[in-house]
């Protein structure tokens, strides 16, 4: 991997977690605050790598609420970051910051200040910018529903439509493999364990053949937390053109919370499985604004679903007149 561009390098120094961080790296909102302040003052971010930066940091203490000592210490950890990054970057990992070409603009557009500061990834980063159908659902789901997820992913693959998956067990994995095994492309947005999953036996060939991109806003060896899962969900929805919930539990778990958050922020139109195999809890999403996934659908999935979304929007506007 070649040298990072300077803004990404600064973001890495300030925000990257390495699993051993005596100084707490900046949170998303702290970083946003710092960048905003620098912008107001007319200082480019790169300025933070200059030798005499301490006075500037002191000046910013009050408006940003970030102690100059902490920022200085973070900016000085370049050797640590380089040593840590080298191992995985030499195994094929890339890092993309806000200003890198690999960073999908759609994340800025949809997530705005919540767009992850850094993306860690393996495989073809172009796939991040090709839209696709997000297929989500809980880890523990009936065989029938897993089969549905796989079938729908197969169909996406046949029609050259990408699948976006959360990369977890259950529905996520069924959808991912459903797309890949059919020769399609897939983006796996991971909440944890990027490095382990990217070097796994099953996925290696797909990464090598540019059919798969594994990406995470969390460092390559981070463990699973509920917070990480929610951050991951945001990205899944933001990257997708459309999303489909295979199964969820009402009021419980990541799938429900993620779907609800997506509906609130209108990141992407949401469909949900209904019908005899689907859990009854799925229906609760309909009340929040999701659409029922048609049980029978002919022709091109993407176009059919998009037209449903459009007609529904038209319908909503037309509704009062008809009544």
């Amino acid at each position, binding site marked *: *991997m070649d040298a990072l561009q300077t803004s990404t390098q600064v973001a890495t120094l300030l925000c990257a977690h*390495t699993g051993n961080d005596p100084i707490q790296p900046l949170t998303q909102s702290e970083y946003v605050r710092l960048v905003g302040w620098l912008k107001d003052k007319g200082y480019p971010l790169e300025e933070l790598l200059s030798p005499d930066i301490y006075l500037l940091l002191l000046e910013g203490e009050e408006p940003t609420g970030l102690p100059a000592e902490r920022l200085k210490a973070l900016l000085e950890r370049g*050797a640590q970051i380089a040593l*840590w990054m080298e191992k995985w970057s030499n*195994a094929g990992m890339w890092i993309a910051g806000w200003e890198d070409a690999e960073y999908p603009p759609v994340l800025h557009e949809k997530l705005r200040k919540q767009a992850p500061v850094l993306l860690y990834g393996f495989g073809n980063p172009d796939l991040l910018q090709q839209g696709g159908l997000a297929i989500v659902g809980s880890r523990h789901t009936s065989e029938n529903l897993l089969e549905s997820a796989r079938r729908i992913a197969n169909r996406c693959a046949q029609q050259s439509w990408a699948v976006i998956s959360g990369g977890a067990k259950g529905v996520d994995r069924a959808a991912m493999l459903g797309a890949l095994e059919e020769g399609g492309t897939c983006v796996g947005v991971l909440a944890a364990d990027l490095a382990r999953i990217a070097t796994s036996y099953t996925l290696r060939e797909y990464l090598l053949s540019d059919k798969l991109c594994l990406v995470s806003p969390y460092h390559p060896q981070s463990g699973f937390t509920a917070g990480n899962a929610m951050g991951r969900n945001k990205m899944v929805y933001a990257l997708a053109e459309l999303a489909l919930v295979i199964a969820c539990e009402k009021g419980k778990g990541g799938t429900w919370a993620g779907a609800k958050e997506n509906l609130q922020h209108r990141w992407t139109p949401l469909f949900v499985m209904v019908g005899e195999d689907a859990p009854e809890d799925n229906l609760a999403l309909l009340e929040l604004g999701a659409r029922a996934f048609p049980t029978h659908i002919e022709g091109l999935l993407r176009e059919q679903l998009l037209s449903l979304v459009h007609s529904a929007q038209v319908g909503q506007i037309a509704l009062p007149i008809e009544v």
Partner: protein
Amino acid sequence: MLVQRTGWGKSIVYFIAARLLREQNGNKGLSLLISPLLSLMRNQIEMAERMGIHAETIHSANTERWDAVEKQLLGDEIDLLLISPERLANADFYGRVLQQVAPRILMLIVDEAHCISDWGHDFRPDYRRIARVLRLLPRNIPVLATTATANNRVVEDIRQQLGEELHIHRGALARRSLRLQNILLPSQAERLAWLAAHLDTLPGSGIIYTLTVADAERVTRWLQTKGFDVHPYHADLENPLREELEQKLLHNQVKALVATVALGMGFDKPDLGFVVHFQRPGSVVHYYQQIGRAGRSLDSAIIVLLGGEEDDEVINYFIRTAFPPQAHTEAILRALRQSPEGLSIVEMERKVNLSRQQIDKVLRLLSSETPSPIVQTGSRFVLAPVPYSIDVERIQKLTALRRAEQEQMQQYMQSAECLMLFLQRALDDPHAEPCGKCAVCIGNPIVSPMVDEQTVREAVHFLRRSEIPLEPRKMWPSREGLSICRGQGTIPESLRAEEGRALCLWGDAGWGALVKRGKYNHGFYSDELVEGIVDMVKRWNPQPVPQWVTCVPSLRHPHLVPDFARRLAESLGLPFVPCVHKVRETRPQKEMQNSFHQVHNLDGAFEVHSWEGMAKPVFLVDDVVDSGWTLTVIAVLLRQAGSGAVFPIALAKQVLRGG
């Protein structure tokens, strides 16, 4: 990057820089110095202390200091931490120590920076990793690279790897005090005789370089028998001993150390009086670096290059084995592709028929690739998701370069122009000029090239009495049981072979050539060799004294060894009882590349038929020993069948190792 000859004072530059940076930073933080050899570090730490700089080192040989150093590191009391590239790459060290202090690294110093380049004379894969780390460093961390030996090609390569921002400071390389002379003496015996005749005339204390460990040991023993105070120095010696030997040389308490490249970079003795090469090194860069240790603070130091008939054979071997054969690399990658869970090194040994060393070589080559097709997690290696094909071209290019370097040294050996000028030109020194004091410039030898015949005869005699101990194997190679004594774990002492003897090294200038001829040309080992072994047994005098002789059987050459063993038994006045039988054909042991496969190849291949006199101690005879497993396995079978102590005897032992 600072390119200055050894002794110029490069270390003072980074000591001062480290101190200044720390002062600027409110006496917090440290500089990290990456340097390849421990001998270098000892000298440097002492020098730093004299300058009032607190330097410490953590390496594999000072584990007892780790806790103390770690405490000081965490307490931010250290200006400069010296570590080896291997330490830097070590996952445990990185996780436990380096990550703790890495947030406070103010500057990175890379010593012997020529190692970064493929083209450097001792490229080290770990340096590739360093180059990658340097590329990832933000510009608020300064980097200082230093080297004494880098020609234009190496400098350009380093610039390419580290980026255009690299500033290069380059000084002249020539050292005025060196008086160079080359002497061609084909046979080892002649060179031994030359050393014995002229070592006394060389000024002060110095270094005699050999290409292999075995040669360092031999030359030492020869000179010791001639009354010289010399010691061997190589990578097989324990660190405390090496340290002690360096101290002795530093304080002129020995005439010379007979050393391999292990006595290397940065060993700093300003008044080193001479450097003699017993064999011709593989490249000018190598050679210049080694002779550059002499005469730093002297007006005159003597440098003699002895060339011999075996030089090219040894160098060719090093060149041939520098890179793992493509088939080895492919075998490892194939094994990894077939292993969803990845493989540890021990598991690789079982899956592929390669020695631990061969496996290590492949892993080092693969890890040095950018990007690398393998990645280590814990003790296991897995395939990384990066496209990879073996860079045959790179290996061919480097091999061709090594050949060219070898040829350049051959030309140097014969040079009719000023020797110093030749070396400087080869090193792209812009300040090259005739020295006026080498043997070519003055038109006369500096040291006489003459040897007297009597001493040469003594040297031949010495070589013929240079038997090699055969250490008994103590452990079975695998956990998996063998049929032999449920072979796993430790071999019980009651079943182990005793220490044995080999008459010579395969192909050496004593008996070696005769053994080689016997095996391959004549199919018969001469009576001269029988006499050689009888003499050897007299010198050796094994206890309890063996009362009978047996031998290793072979289905492929059913008569060669038994015939020799019978004649040997006769000369020793002992009964010859060929009671070991081969019941199954095996593949040649030399095709078995690691202990696991070697022992499994032999498992169940032999049977011992007991006889009434067998409870007495016995000589077990074989011709050429390689891994020693055949002797080990047969010794166990003999002991199980009720024999007394088993003393292995071999005609030759196969070794060829630098370091």
